[in-house]
């Protein structure tokens, strides 16, 4: 063994010693709360959400806590909620998608135009719309993963392209709710209402909940979900550790395109009509990103949960409805939403700090 010096052998004499020990967390109530915070990051936006509900409840009284108002919030956030789930997925991979809203609008237009212009049965038009969404997602994913362009730029360009195509293809024509109801009610399927203990829900709301829960499950409990986090965390490391980076990114963008298609279908259900000029195309991306960041998902990828994004969407919904009901001027509402965005994230930061 040549000149090797055995001075290190001494460490063997106490090899029973622990290499590293982790302090047992003091398991008081506070300790449990800490642990919860660390294992379930969505808890912070949930707290903010509940606090917001309580505050508005105090201000507005029973008007706010009526089943109508409470289910109204769900009705009003359903589109942003679905888009936020899609956006959260992308942001988990350290990307960002500025085209989500535009894709949703285009998909709804495609579903409508295929039915009314080409006479395709609505049960077929819907899958065609969803396929178009998926295809746009695939283009985004390919540009991000293969051509290695920054997601911000790819989707900034795609946003404008999709929006312009949407206007050009639809010739800016709205398909009226009455016509859809008469000729292709399936397009409005997600607008179907049902009553549950006095509160009115629509299938669109149910779909939003399903999308969020399924994504939460998939991200948490399947290999694919773990790969999404790993790629967002450190793509190089994930690749070396055996994750197929390209396949993961492609699948995420395609899934997001598909979910945007669903959001388009939800839009038809909610508004009854198909309108290419729906504002979601223009500001849906910012709304979704707002929900995601209020929900505590890191813009740098790899951290946060889809439930957080959902709570984020609800927080914005509660604020908007609450302020409107309180009669605030719309500009004051925007101002307060702006303050809310900053405040929510400050609180989040602060909670994480004091419980570190």
């Amino acid at each position, binding site marked *: *063994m040549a*000149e090797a*010096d055995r001075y290190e052998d001494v460490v063997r004499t106490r*090899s029973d010693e622990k*290499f*590293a020990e982790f302090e047992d967390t003091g398991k008081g109530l506070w300790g449990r709360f800490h642990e919860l915070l660390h294992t379930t990051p969505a808890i912070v936006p949930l707290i903010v959400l509940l606090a917001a509900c309580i505050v508005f409840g105090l201000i507005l009284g029973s008007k706010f806590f009526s089943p109508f108002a409470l289910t109204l919030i769900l009705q009003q956030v359903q589109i942003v909620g679905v888009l936020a789930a899609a956006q959260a997925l992308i942001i988990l991979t350290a990307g960002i998608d500025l085209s989500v809203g535009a894709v949703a609008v285009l998909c709804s237009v495609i579903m409508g135009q295929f039915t009314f212009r080409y006479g395709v049965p609505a049960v077929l038009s819907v899958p065609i719309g969803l396929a178009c969404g998926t295809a746009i997602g695939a283009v985004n994913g390919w540009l991000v993963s293969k051509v290695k362009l920054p997601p911000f730029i790819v989707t900034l360009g795609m946003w404008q392209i999709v929006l312009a195509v949407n206007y050009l293809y639809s010739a800016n024509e709205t398909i009226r709710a009455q016509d859809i109801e008469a000729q292709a009610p399936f397009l409005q399927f997600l607008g179907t209402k049902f009553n549950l203990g006095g509160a009115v829900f629509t299938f669109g709301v149910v779909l939003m909940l399903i999308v969020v829960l399924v994504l939460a499950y998939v991200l948490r409990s399947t290999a694919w979900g773990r790969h999404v986090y790993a790629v967002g965390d450190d793509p190089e490391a994930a690749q070396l550790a055996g994750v197929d980076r390209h396949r993961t990114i492609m699948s995420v963008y395609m899934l997001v395109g598909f979910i945007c298609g669903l959001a388009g279908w939800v839009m038809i259900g909610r508004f009854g009509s198909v309108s290419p000029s729906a504002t979601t195309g223009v500001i849906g991306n910012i709304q979704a990103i707002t929900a995601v960041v209020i929900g505590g998902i890191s813009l740098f990828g790899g951290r946060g949960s889809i439930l957080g994004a959902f709570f984020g969407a609800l927080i914005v919904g509660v604020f908007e409805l609450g302020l409107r009901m309180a009669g605030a001027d719309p500009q004051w509402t925007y101002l307060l939403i702006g303050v809310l965005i900053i405040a929510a994230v400050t609180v989040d930061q602060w909670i994480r700090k004091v419980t570190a």
Partner: protein
Amino acid sequence: MSKDTQGTPVLEARGLVKRYGKVTALDHCDFDLQPGEILAVIGDNGAGKSTLIKALSGAIQPNAGEILLEGRPVSFASPNDARAEGIETVYQTLAMSPALSIADNMFMGRELRMPGLMGQVFRKLDRKRMEDFSRQKLSELGLMTIQNINQPVETLSGGQRQGVAVARAAAFGSRVVILDEPTAALGVKESRRVLDLIQEVRARGIPIILISHNMPHVFEVADRVHIHRLGKRLCVIDPKDHTMSDAVAYMTGASVPEGVAEPA
């Protein structure tokens, strides 16, 4: 502790070339690893050691040359291909996802699914099995006792992280285990554990490639020492026949081993 090293090499490379822009990191490099041996690879910073093992493990694709696994030509398009053949690697950068748990990292890319319906239809991960396996491997290898196998890797110290990476390679490597400077940031005690682990893995009959700048460690555990210089293999020496000074002299170019012509 030494053994005869003739026969078909487990892993062999012929004339590997890898260029990065104007830099030639590998310059017609040869390599062979014999069954059951610990082969150390030493060389200056930037000599191309990491590039060599990245080529062998599929992390990069060489511009030229061929790789043979037990005599059969292979071409790895990704680290996953090499892992499928039982080649496990601990990269210099460790390749861990900081925000994910130890268990997640151990099984990254080869997750276990639940048996039955849950696994096949819902593709649910079998967390319990993965955690038990990880915990068992980590403590079985005497490397560490970690209370919570679910804590994110980023909460571990550098030494602990290196321990997890080595344990992952040792647990899954069935044909070759490659370690790129596994003890660089480790303390005395921790380095010692890794060296012991290397010998345990070898005792299971699995050959090991070890890159290290620590000569005493290299001379302690290696059966053969591959000296890398300027992107290629300069020579292979037997640590029993050479001193550390010889090895250092060869790798730095201070002297030239017999039968090798130093390039102008």
